[in-house]
């Protein structure tokens, strides 16, 4: 339609040479902004893919979701929440287009609520990472040399805390036994043997297998008996994983927060009676941004939780 228009002679008051893309300025600006955002998140995701598929090997693998306290169904739930919010924001635009302002406001309100649900779930996830010390620079990746000695001392302190504050834990017997075996001089067991006691023989990585194990196939690790205990264990490439995880999900959460601020402004406008059909382009542009945030999560969810 527009191309056909441009082929006809322009009115006298317009320039004869039509410059630029035939789009509203706001929409063009939003797409140019989204283009920069695409490159930004491509860089983050690209670096993650490269690190993920670079150095890890079969003996020293990349952390699995289980290793780093990620729960797949929670990620899937958050994906569902964002998809629902994408639908509601597009329906808000559609409602405004059909002149139904009240329904548009309702859809914007639901979108805001869904965005908040996403951030609350993410906050719970972050809290779990902090509680289990799955943080950049705080994870024990190697159990050889001085790192191993530091690991044993750290675990001994955690065991003492568990004994004092969680005496009713299902694994309290194993906790006491391990603390006794480590001993006062921290030399009763090797770091790899301590790690095996914590995660269990089935979950020890090849690179962390002790030369001599005192555990049988039927024995369970302390965290297998009580996964809620705060005990450190070896996670090869854990610090790199945590850096990538917090960088990607953190920037994404900031973008979600930015969207929520805009939705709040729209609702304030509506509350003051200033919102109407003339805001259709504004809702469309906000929707473009929100859908982009959804697309980023569509890739983050499988990359972090599934593959």
């Amino acid at each position, binding site marked *: 339609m*527009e191309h056909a228009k441009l082929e006809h002679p322009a009115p006298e008051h317009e320039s004869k040479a039509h410059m630029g893309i035939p789009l509203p300025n706001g929409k063009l600006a939003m797409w140019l902004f989204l283009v920069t955002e695409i490159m930004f998140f491509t860089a983050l995701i690209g670096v993650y893919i490269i690190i993920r598929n670079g*150095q890890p090997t079969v003996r020293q693998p990349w952390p699995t979701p289980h290793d780093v306290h990620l729960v797949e169904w929670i990620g899937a739930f958050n994906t569902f929440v964002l998809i629902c919010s994408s639908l509601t924001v597009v329906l808000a635009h559609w409602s405004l287009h059909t002149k139904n302002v009240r329904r548009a406001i309702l859809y914007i309100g639901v979108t805001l609520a869904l965005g908040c649900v996403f951030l609350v779930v993410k906050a719970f996830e972050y809290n779990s990472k902090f509680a289990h010390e799955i943080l950049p620079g705080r994870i024990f990746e190697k159990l050889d040399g001085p790192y191993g000695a530091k690991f044993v001392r750290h675990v001994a302190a955690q065991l003492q805390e568990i004994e004092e504050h969680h005496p009713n834990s299902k694994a309290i017997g194993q906790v006491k036994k391990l603390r006794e075996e480590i001993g006062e001089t921290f030399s009763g067991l090797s770091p790899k043997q301590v790690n095996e006691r914590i995660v269990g023989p089935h979950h020890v990585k090849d690179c962390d297998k002790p030369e001599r194990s005192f555990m049988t196939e039927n024995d369970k690790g302390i965290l297998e008996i009580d996964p809620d205990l705060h005990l450190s264990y070896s996670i090869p490439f854990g610090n790199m994983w945590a850096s990538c995880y917090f960088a990607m999900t953190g920037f994404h959460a900031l973008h979600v927060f930015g969207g929520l601020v805009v939705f709040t402004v729209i609702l304030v406008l509506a509350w003051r009676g200033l919102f109407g059909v003339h805001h259709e*382009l504004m809702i469309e542009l906000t929707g473009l941004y929100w859908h982009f945030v959804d697309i980023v999560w569509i890739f983050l969810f499988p990359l972090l939780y599934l593959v």
Partner: protein
Amino acid sequence: MTDLEHKEHAADHGPNFQTYIAVFIALCVGTGLSFLANLFLGQGAASFWIIMAVAVFKATLVAMIFMHLKFDWGRLYCIVIPVSVMAVMMMIVLLPDSVFYWHHLHRQQETAAESTGH
């Protein structure tokens, strides 16, 4: 092009309510499919390709229908195509050095370790 002309254009060619609901259902099914592929196939090449193909399909649906790219393509292709090419190229050009070389190096090290009995 004025905002008014744009709105008239969108009214003629924009998707309708049923289309939005259909896309929403497809996105939910895609998410479920990814989750089930991971649950039943585990972490492997098969599940990887299924899950990533579903992710690309979902992203395409959102971009084309929810972001109206399908209807604005004639005006936005000059922005979208270059950035898509750049984004894919950025990852591809990094892969040979960072990934393929490391894999090659590790294979060599593991072979050497096996031959020496460590």
